[in-house]
Protein backbone atom coordinates (compact mmCIF):
# COMPACT_ATOMS: atom_id res chain seq x y z
CA UNK A 1 0.00 0.00 0.00
CA UNK A 2 1.77 3.10 -1.14
CA UNK A 3 -1.02 5.51 -0.25
CA UNK A 4 0.30 5.83 3.30
CA UNK A 5 3.57 7.63 3.91
CA UNK A 6 5.86 5.09 5.49
CA UNK A 7 7.69 7.59 7.67
CA UNK A 8 4.68 8.86 9.57
CA UNK A 9 4.43 6.31 12.39
CA UNK A 10 7.08 7.14 15.01
CA UNK A 11 7.92 3.53 15.76
CA UNK A 12 11.05 4.10 17.86
CA UNK A 13 9.36 6.82 19.88
CA UNK A 14 6.39 4.57 20.65
CA UNK A 15 8.65 1.70 21.69
CA UNK A 16 10.50 4.08 24.01
CA UNK A 17 7.20 5.40 25.36
CA UNK A 18 6.07 1.88 26.25
CA UNK A 19 9.39 0.97 27.80
CA UNK A 20 9.29 4.08 29.97
CA UNK A 21 5.79 3.45 31.35
CA UNK A 22 7.06 1.58 34.36
CA UNK A 23 9.54 4.33 35.14
CA UNK A 24 6.97 7.08 35.71
CA UNK A 25 6.70 6.29 39.40
CA UNK A 26 7.05 9.91 40.48
CA UNK A 27 3.66 10.65 39.02
CA UNK A 28 0.39 10.10 40.87
CA UNK A 29 -1.17 8.64 37.73
CA UNK A 30 1.16 5.63 37.83
CA UNK A 31 -0.13 4.71 41.27
CA UNK A 32 -3.74 5.57 40.58
CA UNK A 33 -3.81 3.16 37.63
CA UNK A 34 -2.23 0.32 39.59
CA UNK A 35 -5.54 -1.53 39.67
CA UNK A 36 -5.34 -2.14 35.91
CA UNK A 37 -1.60 -2.69 35.62
CA UNK A 38 -2.12 -6.10 33.97
CA UNK A 39 -4.25 -4.54 31.24
CA UNK A 40 -1.68 -1.78 30.82
CA UNK A 41 0.97 -4.41 30.18
CA UNK A 42 -1.29 -6.16 27.69
CA UNK A 43 -1.86 -2.91 25.78
CA UNK A 44 1.87 -2.18 25.70
CA UNK A 45 2.74 -5.69 24.61
CA UNK A 46 0.21 -5.77 21.76
CA UNK A 47 1.60 -2.47 20.47
CA UNK A 48 5.16 -3.80 20.65
CA UNK A 49 4.31 -7.08 18.93
CA UNK A 50 2.49 -5.28 16.12
CA UNK A 51 5.41 -2.84 15.79
CA UNK A 52 7.57 -5.96 15.47
CA UNK A 53 9.57 -5.11 18.60
CA UNK A 54 8.40 -7.88 20.92
CA UNK A 55 11.66 -8.03 22.87
CA UNK A 56 11.47 -4.40 23.98
CA UNK A 57 10.07 -5.48 27.36
CA UNK A 58 11.43 -8.14 29.72
CA UNK A 59 9.32 -11.23 29.15
CA UNK A 60 10.38 -13.17 32.22
CA UNK A 61 9.67 -10.24 34.48
CA UNK A 62 6.20 -9.82 32.98
CA UNK A 63 5.37 -13.52 33.20
CA UNK A 64 6.41 -13.62 36.83
CA UNK A 65 4.34 -10.51 37.64
CA UNK A 66 1.22 -11.75 35.82
CA UNK A 67 1.40 -15.14 37.52
CA UNK A 68 1.54 -13.25 40.79
CA UNK A 69 -1.80 -11.66 39.94
CA UNK A 70 -3.63 -14.97 39.95
CA UNK A 71 -5.77 -15.53 43.02
CA UNK A 72 -6.87 -18.67 44.83
CA UNK A 73 -10.19 -18.65 42.96
CA UNK A 74 -8.28 -19.14 39.68
CA UNK A 75 -9.03 -15.68 38.34
CA UNK A 76 -6.63 -12.78 37.95
CA UNK A 77 -6.69 -9.33 39.49
CA UNK A 78 -5.42 -6.19 37.83
CA UNK A 79 -2.47 -6.12 40.21
CA UNK A 80 -1.08 -8.37 42.92
CA UNK A 81 -3.52 -8.83 45.82
CA UNK A 82 -6.37 -7.29 43.83
CA UNK A 83 -9.63 -9.17 43.48
CA UNK A 84 -10.23 -11.38 40.49
CA UNK A 85 -12.23 -10.05 37.57
CA UNK A 86 -12.82 -11.30 34.04
CA UNK A 87 -11.28 -8.14 32.56
CA UNK A 88 -7.92 -8.84 34.14
CA UNK A 89 -8.20 -12.59 33.62
CA UNK A 90 -8.53 -11.87 29.91
CA UNK A 91 -5.53 -9.53 29.82
CA UNK A 92 -3.44 -12.04 31.80
CA UNK A 93 -4.25 -14.93 29.50
CA UNK A 94 -3.57 -12.77 26.45
CA UNK A 95 -0.18 -11.68 27.84
CA UNK A 96 0.89 -15.21 28.73
CA UNK A 97 -0.14 -16.53 25.33
CA UNK A 98 1.79 -13.81 23.49
CA UNK A 99 4.85 -14.63 25.60
CA UNK A 100 4.38 -18.33 24.98
CA UNK A 101 3.89 -19.02 28.69
CA UNK A 102 0.29 -20.17 28.81
CA UNK A 103 1.42 -23.59 29.97
CA UNK A 104 2.78 -22.00 33.14
CA UNK A 105 -0.73 -21.62 34.51
CA UNK A 106 -3.35 -24.24 35.20
CA UNK A 107 -6.00 -23.92 32.49
CA UNK A 108 -8.44 -26.02 34.54
CA UNK A 109 -8.33 -23.49 37.38
CA UNK A 110 -8.99 -20.59 35.03
CA UNK A 111 -11.80 -22.51 33.34
CA UNK A 112 -13.37 -23.25 36.73
CA UNK A 113 -13.21 -19.55 37.64
CA UNK A 114 -14.82 -18.43 34.39
CA UNK A 115 -17.55 -21.08 34.60
CA UNK A 116 -18.34 -19.96 38.15
CA UNK A 117 -19.31 -16.56 36.74
CA UNK A 118 -21.81 -18.00 34.30
CA UNK A 119 -25.33 -17.73 35.73
CA UNK A 120 -27.11 -20.72 34.26
CA UNK A 121 -29.85 -20.57 36.86
CA UNK A 122 -30.91 -17.03 35.97
CA UNK A 123 -32.05 -17.55 32.44
CA UNK A 124 -34.75 -15.29 31.15
CA UNK A 125 -35.81 -15.58 27.52
CA UNK A 126 -33.26 -18.36 27.23
CA UNK A 127 -30.46 -15.87 27.86
CA UNK A 128 -27.45 -16.90 29.93
CA UNK A 129 -25.69 -14.14 31.80
CA UNK A 130 -21.97 -14.01 32.49
CA UNK A 131 -20.89 -11.78 35.37
CA UNK A 132 -17.61 -9.90 35.50
CA UNK A 133 -16.91 -11.07 39.03
CA UNK A 134 -18.69 -12.43 42.08
CA UNK A 135 -20.44 -9.10 42.61
CA UNK A 136 -22.82 -9.68 39.76
CA UNK A 137 -22.37 -7.01 37.10
CA UNK A 138 -23.22 -8.48 33.71
CA UNK A 139 -22.27 -7.07 30.34
CA UNK A 140 -21.74 -8.37 26.81
CA UNK A 141 -18.01 -7.74 27.38
CA UNK A 142 -18.02 -10.51 29.94
CA UNK A 143 -19.93 -12.86 27.63
CA UNK A 144 -17.17 -12.36 25.06
CA UNK A 145 -14.35 -12.73 27.59
CA UNK A 146 -15.77 -15.98 28.92
CA UNK A 147 -15.82 -17.48 25.45
CA UNK A 148 -12.46 -16.06 24.44
CA UNK A 149 -10.62 -17.08 27.62
CA UNK A 150 -11.92 -20.64 27.50
CA UNK A 151 -11.00 -20.92 23.84
CA UNK A 152 -7.36 -20.46 24.87
CA UNK A 153 -7.66 -23.68 26.89
CA UNK A 154 -10.00 -25.39 24.47
CA UNK A 155 -12.66 -25.63 27.18
CA UNK A 156 -15.29 -23.37 25.61
CA UNK A 157 -17.64 -26.34 25.16
CA UNK A 158 -18.21 -26.27 28.89
CA UNK A 159 -20.05 -22.95 28.50
CA UNK A 160 -23.73 -22.66 27.71
CA UNK A 161 -22.89 -21.14 24.33
CA UNK A 162 -26.48 -21.17 23.09
CA UNK A 163 -27.65 -19.27 26.15
CA UNK A 164 -24.84 -16.75 25.84
CA UNK A 165 -25.60 -16.25 22.14
CA UNK A 166 -29.24 -15.53 23.09
CA UNK A 167 -28.03 -12.94 25.60
CA UNK A 168 -25.98 -11.29 22.89
CA UNK A 169 -28.88 -11.46 20.44
CA UNK A 170 -30.96 -9.76 23.14
CA UNK A 171 -28.45 -6.91 23.18
CA UNK A 172 -28.98 -6.18 19.49
CA UNK A 173 -30.81 -2.95 18.67
CA UNK A 174 -32.92 -1.42 15.93
CA UNK A 175 -29.84 0.09 14.31
CA UNK A 176 -28.11 -3.28 13.99
CA UNK A 177 -25.68 -2.39 16.75
CA UNK A 178 -25.16 -4.01 20.15
CA UNK A 179 -25.25 -2.59 23.65
CA UNK A 180 -23.74 -3.49 27.01
CA UNK A 181 -26.66 -5.79 27.82
CA UNK A 182 -30.17 -6.42 26.50
CA UNK A 183 -31.72 -2.97 26.45
CA UNK A 184 -28.39 -1.15 26.24
CA UNK A 185 -27.71 1.49 23.57
CA UNK A 186 -25.50 0.57 20.62
CA UNK A 187 -21.88 1.42 21.25
CA UNK A 188 -18.94 0.55 19.00
CA UNK A 189 -16.91 -1.09 21.77
CA UNK A 190 -19.86 -3.31 22.70
CA UNK A 191 -20.38 -4.03 19.00
CA UNK A 192 -16.83 -5.36 18.84
CA UNK A 193 -17.30 -7.60 21.88
CA UNK A 194 -20.59 -8.98 20.57
CA UNK A 195 -19.40 -9.56 17.03
CA UNK A 196 -16.14 -11.10 18.30
CA UNK A 197 -18.09 -13.33 20.70
CA UNK A 198 -20.39 -14.47 17.91
CA UNK A 199 -17.32 -15.15 15.76
CA UNK A 200 -15.81 -17.38 18.47
CA UNK A 201 -19.16 -19.13 18.88
CA UNK A 202 -19.52 -19.60 15.11
CA UNK A 203 -22.83 -17.70 15.26
CA UNK A 204 -22.28 -14.66 13.07
CA UNK A 205 -25.64 -15.55 11.51
CA UNK A 206 -27.18 -13.60 14.41
CA UNK A 207 -25.79 -10.34 13.06
CA UNK A 208 -27.77 -8.07 10.72
CA UNK A 209 -24.68 -7.66 8.58
CA UNK A 210 -25.79 -4.85 6.28
CA UNK A 211 -27.47 -2.73 8.92
CA UNK A 212 -24.55 -3.10 11.32
CA UNK A 213 -21.91 -2.47 8.65
CA UNK A 214 -23.75 0.72 7.73
CA UNK A 215 -23.91 1.84 11.35
CA UNK A 216 -20.21 1.09 11.82
CA UNK A 217 -19.22 2.87 8.63
CA UNK A 218 -21.12 5.95 9.84
CA UNK A 219 -18.76 6.08 12.84
CA UNK A 220 -16.10 7.58 10.59
CA UNK A 221 -16.20 11.35 10.61
CA UNK A 222 -14.92 13.85 8.07
CA UNK A 223 -11.62 14.17 9.94
CA UNK A 224 -11.03 10.47 9.33
CA UNK A 225 -11.36 9.54 13.00
CA UNK A 226 -14.18 7.45 14.37
CA UNK A 227 -16.63 7.82 17.22
CA UNK A 228 -18.31 5.19 19.34
CA UNK A 229 -21.88 6.41 18.96
CA UNK A 230 -23.58 8.95 16.69
CA UNK A 231 -22.72 12.57 17.49
CA UNK A 232 -19.90 11.75 19.86
CA UNK A 233 -16.32 12.91 19.47
CA UNK A 234 -13.78 11.05 17.38
CA UNK A 235 -11.34 8.95 19.37
CA UNK A 236 -8.35 6.90 18.23
CA UNK A 237 -9.43 3.77 20.10
CA UNK A 238 -12.45 3.43 17.82
CA UNK A 239 -10.04 2.75 14.97
CA UNK A 240 -9.86 -0.62 16.70
CA UNK A 241 -13.40 -1.17 18.03
CA UNK A 242 -15.00 -0.17 14.71
CA UNK A 243 -12.25 -1.50 12.44
CA UNK A 244 -12.15 -4.94 14.03
CA UNK A 245 -15.92 -5.39 13.86
CA UNK A 246 -15.95 -4.32 10.22
CA UNK A 247 -13.06 -6.69 9.54
CA UNK A 248 -14.96 -9.65 11.01
CA UNK A 249 -18.00 -8.62 8.96
CA UNK A 250 -15.73 -8.56 5.88
CA UNK A 251 -16.63 -4.90 5.33
CA UNK A 252 -13.32 -3.19 6.05
CA UNK A 253 -13.60 -1.44 2.70
CA UNK A 254 -16.68 0.47 3.89
CA UNK A 255 -14.45 3.04 5.62
CA UNK A 256 -11.65 5.21 4.26
CA UNK A 257 -8.40 3.62 5.40
CA UNK A 258 -6.44 6.58 4.10
CA UNK A 259 -8.37 9.13 6.19
CA UNK A 260 -8.23 6.89 9.23
CA UNK A 261 -4.45 6.60 9.00
CA UNK A 262 -4.18 10.37 8.65
CA UNK A 263 -6.18 10.80 11.84
CA UNK A 264 -4.36 8.21 13.95
CA UNK A 265 -0.96 9.43 12.82
CA UNK A 266 -1.93 13.01 13.67
CA UNK A 267 -2.82 11.93 17.20
CA UNK A 268 0.75 10.84 17.92
CA UNK A 269 2.83 12.72 20.44
CA UNK A 270 6.17 13.48 18.81
CA UNK A 271 7.77 12.45 22.11
CA UNK A 272 6.12 9.01 21.82
CA UNK A 273 2.73 7.41 22.38
CA UNK A 274 -0.64 8.05 20.77
CA UNK A 275 -3.48 10.06 22.31
CA UNK A 276 -7.26 9.85 21.94
CA UNK A 277 -7.16 12.77 19.51
CA UNK A 278 -4.59 15.24 18.15
CA UNK A 279 -3.11 17.50 20.78
CA UNK A 280 -4.09 15.41 23.77
CA UNK A 281 -1.91 13.54 26.25
CA UNK A 282 -0.77 10.13 24.99
CA UNK A 283 -1.40 6.94 26.94
CA UNK A 284 -0.68 3.25 26.44
CA UNK A 285 -4.36 2.35 25.85
CA UNK A 286 -4.67 4.64 22.83
CA UNK A 287 -1.18 3.67 21.67
CA UNK A 288 -2.29 0.04 21.60
CA UNK A 289 -5.62 0.56 19.87
CA UNK A 290 -4.29 3.20 17.49
CA UNK A 291 -1.59 0.81 16.29
CA UNK A 292 -4.03 -2.11 16.19
CA UNK A 293 -6.37 0.07 14.11
CA UNK A 294 -3.53 0.86 11.73
CA UNK A 295 -2.65 -2.82 11.49
CA UNK A 296 -6.23 -3.62 10.49
CA UNK A 297 -5.95 -1.30 7.48
CA UNK A 298 -2.59 -2.86 6.63
CA UNK A 299 -0.41 0.10 7.47
CA UNK A 300 3.01 -0.96 6.16
CA UNK A 301 5.58 -2.35 8.56
CA UNK A 302 3.06 -3.56 11.14
CA UNK A 303 2.39 -7.18 11.96
CA UNK A 304 -1.17 -8.29 11.28
CA UNK A 305 -3.60 -8.23 14.18
CA UNK A 306 -6.40 -10.74 14.66
CA UNK A 307 -9.70 -8.82 14.75
CA UNK A 308 -11.33 -11.16 17.29
CA UNK A 309 -8.54 -11.59 19.84
CA UNK A 310 -6.64 -8.30 19.39
CA UNK A 311 -3.36 -10.16 19.37
CA UNK A 312 -0.89 -10.80 16.54
CA UNK A 313 -2.31 -13.21 13.96
CA UNK A 314 0.87 -15.28 14.32
CA UNK A 315 0.13 -15.90 18.01
CA UNK A 316 -3.54 -16.66 17.34
CA UNK A 317 -2.50 -19.12 14.66
CA UNK A 318 0.07 -20.77 16.92
CA UNK A 319 -2.69 -21.38 19.48
CA UNK A 320 -5.05 -22.74 16.83
CA UNK A 321 -7.55 -19.97 17.56
CA UNK A 322 -7.72 -18.67 14.00
CA UNK A 323 -10.37 -21.30 13.23
CA UNK A 324 -13.12 -18.75 13.95
CA UNK A 325 -12.46 -17.60 10.38
CA UNK A 326 -13.75 -20.92 9.05
CA UNK A 327 -17.09 -20.29 10.70
CA UNK A 328 -17.76 -16.92 9.03
CA UNK A 329 -20.89 -17.29 6.86
CA UNK A 330 -19.93 -18.47 3.39
CA UNK A 331 -21.99 -15.80 1.69
CA UNK A 332 -19.80 -13.08 3.21
CA UNK A 333 -16.74 -12.03 1.26
CA UNK A 334 -14.25 -9.20 1.69
Amino acid at each position, binding site marked *: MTMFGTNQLLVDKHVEFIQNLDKKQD*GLEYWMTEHLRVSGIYWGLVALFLLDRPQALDHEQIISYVRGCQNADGGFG*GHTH*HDSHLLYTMSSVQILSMLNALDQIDGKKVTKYVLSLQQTNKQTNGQTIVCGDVWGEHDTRFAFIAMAVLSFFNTQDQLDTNGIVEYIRGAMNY*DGGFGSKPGG*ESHAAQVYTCVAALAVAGRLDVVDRDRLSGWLAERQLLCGGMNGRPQKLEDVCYAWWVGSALDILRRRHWISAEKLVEFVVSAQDEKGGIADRPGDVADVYHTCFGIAGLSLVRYPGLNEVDPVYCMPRSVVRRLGLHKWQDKVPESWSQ
Partner: protein
Amino acid sequence: MHGRRRQQEREPTQDELQQAKQRVDRYRTLNSHVMDLKATSVSTNDALDATKRLLEQNTELHTVWNYRRTIFTSLDEWQCQDTRQEMLDGELKFLLGIITKNIKSYWMWNHRMWALSSLPRPEWQRELGLVAKLLALDARNYHGWDYRRFVVAQLKDAATDKHEVDTQEFAFTTEQINHDCANHSAWHNRSKLLPEILAQRDEDGQLEVLQTENDLILNAIYTDPDDQNAWLYYDWLLDIQKSDEDRSRLLRNKIAAIREL
Protein backbone atom coordinates in the same frame (compact mmCIF):
# COMPACT_ATOMS: atom_id res chain seq x y z
CA MET B 1 -6.99 8.92 29.66
CA HIS B 2 -9.46 10.89 27.60
CA GLY B 3 -9.66 14.49 26.57
CA ARG B 4 -6.57 15.85 28.31
CA ARG B 5 -4.77 18.50 26.30
CA ARG B 6 -0.99 18.35 26.02
CA GLN B 7 0.59 21.32 27.71
CA GLN B 8 3.83 23.10 27.05
CA GLU B 9 6.23 21.49 29.46
CA ARG B 10 8.71 23.42 31.49
CA GLU B 11 10.95 22.04 34.18
CA PRO B 12 8.97 21.76 37.44
CA THR B 13 10.23 23.83 40.35
CA GLN B 14 11.70 22.21 43.47
CA ASP B 15 8.53 23.18 45.30
CA GLU B 16 6.32 21.55 42.70
CA LEU B 17 8.42 18.39 42.76
CA GLN B 18 8.19 18.28 46.53
CA GLN B 19 4.41 18.75 46.47
CA ALA B 20 4.01 16.08 43.81
CA LYS B 21 6.08 13.65 45.88
CA GLN B 22 3.98 14.38 48.95
CA ARG B 23 0.76 13.73 47.02
CA VAL B 24 2.13 10.43 45.78
CA ASP B 25 3.35 9.44 49.25
CA ARG B 26 0.03 10.29 50.86
CA TYR B 27 -1.93 8.31 48.29
CA ARG B 28 0.39 5.32 48.46
CA THR B 29 0.32 5.28 52.26
CA LEU B 30 -3.47 5.30 52.33
CA ASN B 31 -3.66 2.68 49.61
CA SER B 32 -1.22 0.36 51.42
CA HIS B 33 -3.08 0.87 54.67
CA VAL B 34 -6.40 -0.14 53.12
CA MET B 35 -4.89 -3.14 51.33
CA ASP B 36 -3.28 -4.27 54.62
CA LEU B 37 -6.61 -4.03 56.40
CA LYS B 38 -8.24 -6.01 53.60
CA ALA B 39 -5.57 -8.70 53.73
CA THR B 40 -6.44 -9.34 57.37
CA SER B 41 -10.19 -9.00 56.77
CA VAL B 42 -10.61 -6.13 59.19
CA SER B 43 -14.28 -5.16 59.43
CA THR B 44 -14.51 -2.06 61.57
CA ASN B 45 -15.87 1.45 61.21
CA ASP B 46 -12.27 2.66 60.97
CA ALA B 47 -11.74 0.38 58.01
CA LEU B 48 -14.92 1.78 56.44
CA ASP B 49 -13.59 5.26 56.93
CA ALA B 50 -10.22 4.41 55.37
CA THR B 51 -11.87 2.87 52.30
CA LYS B 52 -14.08 5.94 51.96
CA ARG B 53 -11.10 8.29 51.99
CA LEU B 54 -9.31 6.20 49.39
CA LEU B 55 -12.33 5.82 47.11
CA GLU B 56 -12.96 9.56 47.22
CA GLN B 57 -9.58 9.93 45.56
CA ASN B 58 -9.91 7.02 43.16
CA THR B 59 -13.32 5.52 42.31
CA GLU B 60 -11.71 2.97 39.99
CA LEU B 61 -10.41 0.75 42.80
CA HIS B 62 -12.96 -2.02 42.38
CA THR B 63 -11.12 -4.23 44.90
CA VAL B 64 -11.66 -1.52 47.52
CA TRP B 65 -15.37 -1.18 46.63
CA ASN B 66 -15.60 -4.98 47.07
CA TYR B 67 -13.88 -4.72 50.44
CA ARG B 68 -16.16 -1.88 51.52
CA ARG B 69 -19.24 -3.99 50.75
CA THR B 70 -17.73 -6.89 52.68
CA ILE B 71 -17.18 -4.67 55.72
CA PHE B 72 -20.76 -3.42 55.58
CA THR B 73 -22.21 -6.90 55.52
CA SER B 74 -19.96 -8.04 58.38
CA LEU B 75 -20.97 -5.29 60.78
CA ASP B 76 -23.59 -5.99 63.45
CA GLU B 77 -25.66 -3.04 62.23
CA TRP B 78 -26.22 -4.85 58.94
CA GLN B 79 -28.33 -7.49 60.66
CA CYS B 80 -31.02 -5.05 61.77
CA GLN B 81 -33.32 -3.56 59.10
CA ASP B 82 -33.38 -0.06 60.58
CA THR B 83 -29.64 0.33 61.07
CA ARG B 84 -29.00 -1.21 57.68
CA GLN B 85 -31.34 1.36 56.14
CA GLU B 86 -29.42 4.09 57.93
CA MET B 87 -26.02 2.79 56.82
CA LEU B 88 -27.06 2.50 53.19
CA ASP B 89 -28.83 5.87 53.12
CA GLY B 90 -25.52 7.29 54.25
CA GLU B 91 -23.76 5.34 51.53
CA LEU B 92 -26.08 6.78 48.88
CA LYS B 93 -25.32 10.27 50.15
CA PHE B 94 -21.60 9.54 49.91
CA LEU B 95 -22.01 8.32 46.34
CA LEU B 96 -24.10 11.34 45.41
CA GLY B 97 -21.26 13.54 46.59
CA ILE B 98 -18.77 11.95 44.20
CA ILE B 99 -21.06 11.22 41.26
CA THR B 100 -20.56 14.33 39.16
CA LYS B 101 -16.77 13.99 39.16
CA ASN B 102 -16.94 10.30 38.30
CA ILE B 103 -20.01 9.96 36.14
CA LYS B 104 -18.37 7.33 33.91
CA SER B 105 -17.14 5.04 36.67
CA TYR B 106 -18.61 1.54 36.22
CA TRP B 107 -17.53 0.52 39.72
CA MET B 108 -19.24 3.44 41.37
CA TRP B 109 -22.51 2.77 39.55
CA ASN B 110 -22.26 -0.93 40.46
CA HIS B 111 -21.85 0.02 44.08
CA ARG B 112 -24.89 2.26 43.93
CA MET B 113 -26.94 -0.58 42.47
CA TRP B 114 -25.73 -2.85 45.24
CA ALA B 115 -26.65 -0.29 47.90
CA LEU B 116 -30.16 0.12 46.50
CA SER B 117 -30.69 -3.58 46.05
CA SER B 118 -29.64 -4.15 49.68
CA LEU B 119 -31.84 -1.42 51.13
CA PRO B 120 -34.81 -2.65 53.17
CA ARG B 121 -36.81 0.32 51.85
CA PRO B 122 -35.33 1.55 48.55
CA GLU B 123 -36.81 4.69 47.05
CA TRP B 124 -36.81 3.91 43.37
CA GLN B 125 -38.84 7.00 42.44
CA ARG B 126 -36.20 9.18 44.06
CA GLU B 127 -33.53 7.35 42.05
CA LEU B 128 -35.50 8.04 38.89
CA GLY B 129 -35.46 11.73 39.78
CA LEU B 130 -31.74 11.61 40.39
CA VAL B 131 -31.02 9.98 37.03
CA ALA B 132 -33.26 12.53 35.29
CA LYS B 133 -31.13 15.30 36.82
CA LEU B 134 -27.91 13.61 35.69
CA LEU B 135 -29.22 13.13 32.18
CA ALA B 136 -30.14 16.81 32.15
CA LEU B 137 -26.42 17.51 32.66
CA ASP B 138 -25.29 14.92 30.10
CA ALA B 139 -28.13 13.65 27.94
CA ARG B 140 -26.08 10.91 26.31
CA ASN B 141 -24.42 9.50 29.41
CA TYR B 142 -24.16 5.78 28.77
CA HIS B 143 -24.04 4.74 32.42
CA GLY B 144 -26.90 7.09 33.25
CA TRP B 145 -29.24 5.50 30.73
CA ASP B 146 -28.21 1.96 31.72
CA TYR B 147 -28.84 2.92 35.32
CA ARG B 148 -32.20 4.45 34.42
CA ARG B 149 -33.27 1.18 32.78
CA PHE B 150 -32.19 -0.67 35.93
CA VAL B 151 -34.29 1.65 38.12
CA VAL B 152 -37.31 1.45 35.83
CA ALA B 153 -37.09 -2.35 35.86
CA GLN B 154 -37.23 -2.26 39.68
CA LEU B 155 -40.19 0.11 39.59
CA LYS B 156 -41.95 -2.11 37.12
CA ASP B 157 -41.31 -5.15 39.32
CA ALA B 158 -42.89 -3.46 42.32
CA ALA B 159 -45.71 -1.79 40.37
CA THR B 160 -49.31 -2.98 40.33
CA ASP B 161 -49.80 -1.31 36.96
CA LYS B 162 -46.72 -2.21 34.93
CA HIS B 163 -48.12 -0.63 31.76
CA GLU B 164 -48.21 2.71 33.54
CA VAL B 165 -44.46 2.49 34.21
CA ASP B 166 -43.83 1.88 30.49
CA THR B 167 -46.14 4.75 29.54
CA GLN B 168 -44.35 7.17 31.84
CA GLU B 169 -40.96 6.08 30.60
CA PHE B 170 -42.14 6.45 27.02
CA ALA B 171 -43.28 9.98 27.85
CA PHE B 172 -39.81 10.69 29.28
CA THR B 173 -38.22 9.75 25.97
CA THR B 174 -40.72 11.99 24.14
CA GLU B 175 -39.69 14.85 26.41
CA GLN B 176 -35.99 14.19 25.72
CA ILE B 177 -36.53 13.99 21.97
CA ASN B 178 -38.64 17.14 21.89
CA HIS B 179 -35.81 18.86 23.71
CA ASP B 180 -33.22 17.51 21.28
CA CYS B 181 -34.30 15.31 18.38
CA ALA B 182 -30.68 14.17 17.96
CA ASN B 183 -30.66 12.47 21.35
CA HIS B 184 -30.01 8.96 20.14
CA SER B 185 -29.96 7.56 23.64
CA ALA B 186 -33.57 8.66 24.02
CA TRP B 187 -34.52 7.21 20.62
CA HIS B 188 -32.87 3.96 21.58
CA ASN B 189 -34.79 3.75 24.85
CA ARG B 190 -37.94 4.57 22.94
CA SER B 191 -37.31 1.71 20.52
CA LYS B 192 -37.36 -0.69 23.49
CA LEU B 193 -40.59 0.74 24.86
CA LEU B 194 -42.57 1.21 21.66
CA PRO B 195 -43.41 -2.48 21.14
CA GLU B 196 -44.79 -2.60 24.71
CA ILE B 197 -46.81 0.57 24.17
CA LEU B 198 -48.26 -0.78 20.92
CA ALA B 199 -49.10 -4.11 22.53
CA GLN B 200 -51.19 -2.27 25.16
CA ARG B 201 -53.41 -0.56 22.58
CA ASP B 202 -56.20 -1.73 20.38
CA GLU B 203 -56.05 -1.25 16.60
CA ASP B 204 -57.17 2.38 16.68
CA GLY B 205 -54.85 3.12 19.55
CA GLN B 206 -51.96 1.58 17.63
CA LEU B 207 -52.67 3.73 14.59
CA GLU B 208 -52.60 6.79 16.83
CA VAL B 209 -49.27 5.79 18.35
CA LEU B 210 -47.75 5.12 14.95
CA GLN B 211 -48.95 8.47 13.61
CA THR B 212 -47.26 10.23 16.53
CA GLU B 213 -44.14 8.19 15.89
CA ASN B 214 -44.20 9.11 12.23
CA ASP B 215 -44.49 12.82 13.06
CA LEU B 216 -41.68 12.64 15.57
CA ILE B 217 -39.30 11.00 13.10
CA LEU B 218 -40.23 13.40 10.32
CA ASN B 219 -39.50 16.29 12.65
CA ALA B 220 -36.05 14.84 13.32
CA ILE B 221 -35.43 14.29 9.60
CA TYR B 222 -36.41 17.84 8.66
CA THR B 223 -34.30 19.24 11.50
CA ASP B 224 -31.23 17.38 10.31
CA PRO B 225 -31.58 15.19 7.19
CA ASP B 226 -27.99 13.99 7.66
CA ASP B 227 -28.78 12.45 11.02
CA GLN B 228 -28.68 8.79 10.08
CA ASN B 229 -30.48 7.77 13.25
CA ALA B 230 -33.92 9.01 12.22
CA TRP B 231 -33.69 7.05 8.96
CA LEU B 232 -32.62 3.91 10.84
CA TYR B 233 -35.52 4.32 13.25
CA TYR B 234 -37.90 4.76 10.31
CA ASP B 235 -36.59 1.55 8.74
CA TRP B 236 -37.07 -0.29 11.98
CA LEU B 237 -40.59 1.05 12.35
CA LEU B 238 -41.36 -0.36 8.92
CA ASP B 239 -39.86 -3.69 9.96
CA ILE B 240 -42.06 -4.08 13.03
CA GLN B 241 -45.34 -3.45 11.20
CA LYS B 242 -47.48 -6.51 11.27
CA SER B 243 -49.72 -5.59 8.37
CA ASP B 244 -48.77 -4.72 4.81
CA GLU B 245 -51.26 -1.86 4.99
CA ASP B 246 -49.46 -0.21 7.90
CA ARG B 247 -46.12 -0.80 6.28
CA SER B 248 -47.07 0.73 2.95
CA ARG B 249 -48.64 3.75 4.66
CA LEU B 250 -45.40 4.41 6.52
CA LEU B 251 -43.42 3.82 3.34
CA ARG B 252 -45.53 6.36 1.45
CA ASN B 253 -44.90 8.88 4.24
CA LYS B 254 -41.18 8.18 4.05
CA ILE B 255 -41.09 8.65 0.29
CA ALA B 256 -43.06 11.89 0.61
CA ALA B 257 -40.50 13.13 3.15
CA ILE B 258 -37.60 12.27 0.87
CA ARG B 259 -39.30 14.07 -2.03
CA GLU B 260 -39.80 17.14 0.10
CA LEU B 261 -36.18 17.21 1.15
